[in-house]
Each structure stands twice: as structure tokens, then as C-alpha cells.
């Protein structure tokens, strides 16, 4: 499959994520959209890594491996982030009885 398809898919996923972050007010959905963006990037990394390996794998057996390493890093970090983020959302709900981010405009002051 040509690399272009992977790129289009990743860009589409990323734009959906951005649009979701910009337009939705529900904190959990925003969170999910952020995950979507992260995964779009992961998809790109994996695709490029594979392409790399196909091109150079015969001479350099490890070519493209670092891209895949990054993906694992990102997944681990995202998991940690989700746990912290969900905890924040729970605390937020306990304090305000709402998870609407527009309600949280105290940064202004």
C-alpha cells in the first residue's frame, strides 16, 4: 500500500482530533480527541518506520526501528497522562459538579 494512504489517514485523524479539542466542551471528549491526535502521530511513525525498513532493511537490519521505539514511548506516556488527566477530571467534577471546560475560566484572573 502506498505511503500516501497512511499519511492521509493520519492527517484526517489528527484534524478530527484538533476539531474535537476546539469545538467540544466536555472535558472527557476533549481528552479522547487528544488521544486521537496522539494516535494519528503514532500511526505516522509506524508507517514511516515500515517504509524506512523496506528501503534500507537489506543492508542495515535495524533501519526504521527508532520510529517504532518512539511509538512505545508515546503509548506509555499517554497512558500515564490519561491516568493523571482522569484524576483531574474526577476532582473537577467533585468540586464543580460539571465537566464543562467553559465553566472553568478562572485562569482569566
Amino acid at each position, binding site marked *: 500500500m502506498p505511503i500516501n494512504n497512511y499519511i492521509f489517514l493520519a492527517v484526517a485523524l489528527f484534524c478530527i482530533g484538533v476539531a474535537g479539542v*476546539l*469545538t467540544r466542551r466536555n472535558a472527557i471528549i476533549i481528552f479522547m480527541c487528544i488521544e486521537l491526535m496522539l494516535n494519528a502521530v503514532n500511526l505516522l511513525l509506524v508507517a514511516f518506520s515500515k517504509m524506512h525498513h523496506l528501503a534500507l532493511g537489506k543492508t542495515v537490519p535495524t533501519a526504521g526501528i527508532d520510529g517504532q521505539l518512539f511509538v512505545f514511548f508515546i503509548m506509555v506516556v499517554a497512558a500515564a497522562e490519561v491516568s493523571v488527566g482522569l484524576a483531574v477530571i474526577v476532582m473537577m467534577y467533585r468540586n464543580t459538579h460539571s465537566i464543562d*471546560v467553559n465553566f472553568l*475560566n*478562572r485562569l*482569566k*484572573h
Partner: protein
Amino acid sequence: MIQQVWLVPVLPLVGFLINGLFRNFLPKSLVGIIGSGTVLISFILSLLIFGEVRHEGFQPVVVNLFDFISVDKLHISFAFQVDQLSTLFLLIITGVGFLIHLYSTSYMHEEDGPQYARYFAYLNLFVFSMLLLVLGANFVILFIGWEGVGLCSYLLIGYWFKNVDYGYAARKAFIMNRIGDVGFLIAMFLMITKFGSVDFADVFGKAGSVSTGAITAITLLLFVGATGKSAQIPLYTWLPDAMAGPTPVSALIHAATMVTAGIYMIARSHVLYDLAPLTQNVVAVIGLATALLAATIALKQNDIKKVLAYSTVSQLGYMFLGLGVGAYDGAVFHVLTHAFFKALLFLGAGSVIHAMGGEQDMRKMGGLSKKMAITHATFLIGCIAIAGIPPFSGFFSKDEILAAAYGKNPVYYVIGVFTALLTAFYMFRLYAMTFRGHFRGTHEQEHHLHESPAAITIPLVVLAVLAATAGFLGIPPVFAADAHWLGKYLAPVLGEAAHGPELEKGIEGMLMVVSVVLAAIGVVVAWARFSKKPDLAEPTGFGKILANKWYVDEFYNAIIVRPLDLLAQFLVFFDKNIIDGIVNGVGRLVQYTSRQLRLLQSGQVGGYVLLMVVGILVLFLVELFTKH
């Protein structure tokens, strides 16, 4: 003794410090003793110095005290020069100064303690500055004294500072002097560039090696300084207003000493002036014009001190005429005699004002000769001396100048002798209106009339004797050959040719007869017109122009003060509206834009993210459309 010459100025300085710093604690009697005593000791020291200087063949001594300014190749030391000229001025300043201090102890006795001490402190500071001026061995020290006397003049004119007009008079004097001082300063800078030094010895020694143009520029600029300090056209108008100060101040500063500083300075730098014929002509013409103009104004003044003030301006004009025609010793001689008779006249006027309880208008005086015998007699001597009647002192000095003027240009002589006629006339008008006829004041004033106490009359008598006899210091060759003591005494400083052009004896004798006859006519006419029934009506026609001083003050107001005022108003407008507008506008712009930008900070996380995304997109687009 000469090495200790620094004591002469330092003593009045000490008096100034004591009286100035402890004015709230010292009793008035002690203030008077300190004030006059320090000047008296200075006078005695000056006499001792004079005893050494007067010997023939005395060479000028420069006493170096310390290095004052030392920059690159320019070295200015704080040095005093003792020679015949400076010693003569030392004697005038400390001698007349002491008499006026003595006079002041009585004249100012109504002032309360601290004010009285302030007065004497200023007076001592003045004497110190004036001594610095005449003792300095270079132009910078001279200039320090020059500025010091200007400051003291300002302080003393405005001594009664609660009167607003007196404060304005003081400011006027100060500003007018400042205009002249700028000329003096530029002259000094020119000297430093041309000669590399401001020492009298260096400058006069190298004078011949510099172009005439440069010398003319330096001398003209120095003369600008002199017109300010010595009240010549165009800067003379401050002197009549300076009469706002106490009368002894007018006598000391504005008649005997400070206003002659310009004459001293030009006589001191006569080497330069001899090399600049153009400047000499300017000096002579300005001097003559001032003498005539001031004399005409004096004809119609009714304030006793104003008449004397214009008379001073006029006599200073004579001195500049003498300097301009090369009669340097004649000018210095006139400084000497003028110091005596004009101080005498001012002090006499002060005695009259004292007796009249502060009244200065001559129209309200009259017949004072019966009540004030000593004041009357001494005042009469002063009037005769200034009118130029022999053998009183004014005759000798004035005729020396007039003879030299005739030698240079007979037109100078004609105008000069006409001015002498006016002088005799207005002085005897003053005398007749004050001392002759009937008293025209109020009954209370008439009752109050009295002769002044001894502290006032003693200086009057001493000055009267000096005014009557000082002329014999300079007997012209017409009467006795080789009898001009002052000329011989000053010859080492002013040069052998300091008498101006030589005249035949017959012509000189004739000139004298003419001027004496004219002076006598002036005296007689004035006496006849003003002793019995003086004309008290308001002057009309030409007399009104004279009474209003040729409207010179109004003219200056119109061409200098008003335009400056308008310029200042415009600048205020410019400052308030344009400069302030720009400054405030910048502030307002920042405030406005930040108020608008503040709206972006809504606290909505979504908004921030949107901006971030937009920013990233912009960066991408920029990256996309540049470089590649």
C-alpha cells in the same frame, strides 16, 4: 608685606562668614564692628602695600597662591598681581568701602538684628569679590571677582526683598550683567585659543604676534562685558533701577567701585586695546553717547537718587571716552575722583533721605541747608567737584579726558563739553531743589528734619576733603610741568603714552577755559531757575520724553522683552500641546491596545488552543511559502 597681599581680600571674607553664619546671635553693635573693622584692617594693609609700591622702579609682583585649573597645556593659577594699578584700586575700594561701612552702621540702624547682619555680610562679600577682581593676575580670577560683585549687587539691590518692584530691579541688574558676562566669557575662550593662556603677563606679552582681527574680536567682546558691568549703552538701564537698594549700597557698588570694574578691566588690558583702533573708536563713541544720553535724562528726573544714578552713568561714559581716546590714566584718574565725589553725593543724598524719613522726591524737599549744615556743605563740595569747577577734583580729571578727546577728534570734545554743561546744570538743579528755597514737604517731615549723627557726617566730611583735593594728584602740564603725580605713578602699568594725544599748551589752556566757563554758566542758570521757585509742573513736549528716559525701557520692552515673551508663550503652547501630546499619546495608545488585547485572555481553554493552532498553521504556511 606684598607676599601677604592675600590677607587684604581674606579679611572681608572672614567678616562675611562671621556675620553671615552667626547673624541670629551677634548683637548689632558687634556686627557693625566686625563689618567695618575687617575692611578697615584691609585698608591699613593696602596702605602698607602702597608704601612699598609707590617707590620708583617698583616691578609688578605676582603672588602665586595655588594651582586653580590645570588641563593639558592650560595652567591657570590662583595668583594675585600687585602693581601700581591694582594697588590704587585696593586703596579706593578699602578706603571708600570702610567709610561706607561706617556710614551704614548708622544708616541701617532701624533694621532688626539678623537683617542688619545680613546687610553687612553682603557688603563684606562685595568688598571681597571686588578685591579679588582687581588683584587677580589673570582673566579668570578677574572674572571670579566680576561674577562675585554681580551677585552681591543683585543681593543688595534686592535687600528689601519684600517689595516686589525691588526684586524685579535686582533681577534686571543681574540679567543685564549676565548678557555682558557672556561677551567676557567668549573673549576669554578666544584668548585661550589664541594665546594658550589667560595670564596678564602672557596675553599682553604675546599680543603683538596675533592678527589684528583676533585682537579686535577679543577687545570688542571684553568691551561687551564692560558695557554690562559699567552700565553703558546698550546695557545701562539696570543702573537707575538699581537705586532700589539701600543708599550706601548705591554709593559703594553703583557709584564708587563695581561699576568702574569695566574701566579697570580695559585699562588693565590696554595693551590689547592699543592694537585694535576699531575697538578704541567703538569704546569712545559708546562712552560719549552714554555720557550725553544719561545727562539729558538726568535733567528731568525728580527722584534724588535717580538723578545721581544717571549722573553716574554719564560719568562712566566719560571714563570710557577717556579709554577710547587712549587717555588710560585720565580714565583711571576720573575713576578715583568720581569714587570720592559720587560716593559723597550718594551718602549726602542718603543723609537727606534719612532726615526726610524716606522721602526721595526732590519736589517735596527744599530749604534743607538751614537744618543740615554739614550735609549741605559737603554736598555742595560734591556738586562743585562733579560740575568741574577748579580747583575741585572733577575739574582735573574731566579736563584731562576732554583734552585727550580734543586731540583725537574735536567732535568728541564738543559733545563732551556740552555734556559737562548739562552735568553742571542738573547737579545744581538737584542742589537748589534740595537745599535752597522753602521746604515743600509735610509739617511732620519739617518737624522731623535734623542733622544726621556722627557716623554719617564723618564719612561725608572725609569724602568732601578728598573730593576737594584729590585733583591735585594729577595737575596738568599747563599749570606745572611734570606735576602729574598719578600719571607718573601709573606709567609703569599703563605705559608712557597713557595720556592720549599731546596738545599744545595754548590750546589745552583754552579748552579748559571753555569748559570751566560753560560749567559756570550751567551752575548759574540752574541756581537761578531752581533755588527760589522750582518748576514743579509735569514736563511737556521734549521734557516729557526726557522725564520718561527717552522711552528706552519701553523700546527694549517692545523689541526684546515682548518678542521673547511671545516666543516663550509659543514654546509653552508647543510644550503643553505637542510635546506633552506625544508623551501622553504614547501612554494612551499603550493603554488602549492593551485594553483590547486583554479581551483575548478570556480564561476559555478552547480559545487558547484555537490561537495555538492558528499560530502553528501560520508557521507552517510561512515555512511552506518561503525558502523553497
